[in-house]
């Protein structure tokens, strides 16, 4: 199997098939990274980000000199693209609190308990939104997208120990914020 570097070399000389192979290899991870930054309300936008990333990579591939891994380069582009989009779509974010509360309040078993759970989840979402982007992405990759620490590290382009410390620090910060809001999870 050809390495990324070989495929990049072929793509730089105009081989579209080599570029298509690079897309096939990296598209799923690019999408996972994008969706981990944008969150589950913005899955279609994450798809657009993934597409936009490959268009950017195609335009810029001639200037890629291979000083870093191709994957690091593409994940860095994805991160910035998704963070930029997030700052634009944040204001479109529906206020989930009321809709969630309305939904759960109509459910049969233990509505009080469900409302309480929904409120707590809303509190978690609010606290998460105040965390640095890398912490949010690490948490979503690990807890939502079932990524291992290795994948978190690779996508965020950091060593594994740093990824572990992102997760640890993010949990600590969340815990402190939830406590401050009066949500103890015992």
């Amino acid at each position, binding site marked *: 199997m050809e390495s990324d570097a070989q495929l990049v070399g072929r793509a730089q000389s105009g081989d579209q098939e080599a570029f298509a192979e690079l897309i096939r290899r990296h*598209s*799923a991870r690019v999408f996972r990274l994008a969706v981990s930054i944008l969150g*589950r309300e913005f899955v279609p936008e994450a798809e657009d980000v*993934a597409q936009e990333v*490959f268009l950017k990579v195609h335009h810029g591939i001639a200037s890629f000199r291979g000083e870093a891994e191709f994957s690091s380069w593409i994940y860095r582009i994805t991160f910035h693209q998704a963070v930029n989009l997030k700052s634009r779509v944040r204001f479109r974010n529906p206020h989930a609190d009321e809709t969630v509360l309305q939904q759960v309040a109509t459910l049969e078993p233990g509505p009080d308990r469900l409302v309480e759970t929904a409120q*707590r989840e809303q509190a*978690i979402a609010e606290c998460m939104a105040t965390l640095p982007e890398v912490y949010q992405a690490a*948490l979503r990759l690990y807890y939502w997208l079932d990524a291992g620490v290795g994948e978190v590290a690779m996508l965020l382009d950091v060593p594994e120990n740093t990824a572990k410390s992102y997760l640890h620090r993010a949990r600590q910060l969340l815990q402190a914020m939830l406590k401050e809001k009066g949500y103890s999870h015992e």
Partner: protein
Amino acid sequence: MSERETREAEIESLLRRSMAAPVPSLPPNFDERVLRELREDSQKRERYRRILAAGYGLVSAVTCATIMRGQGLNWGAIGVAILVPLVLVAIVPLARRASHAGLPHGAK
């Protein structure tokens, strides 16, 4: 279990519960969609490049003609002065491509 470990286990389970949602994935035709988009994009760029080059050539030719006419040159000389470089610009890449195509594979 220490109190710290208990707290960590609690936030861990809280996060797992609050993020329990289906894992999204890309549609199966994503690769083709991107490749199609890339093809359309490069066609569009090529078209813009040609329009830009043609516009630039036209403006240059008109400017040169105006200046040369202002210097008193007749239209025949102006036509030759403008057309000769343009013909050369068109012929040189064609000639290069033709000689490249004539070479054996290993000689490229």
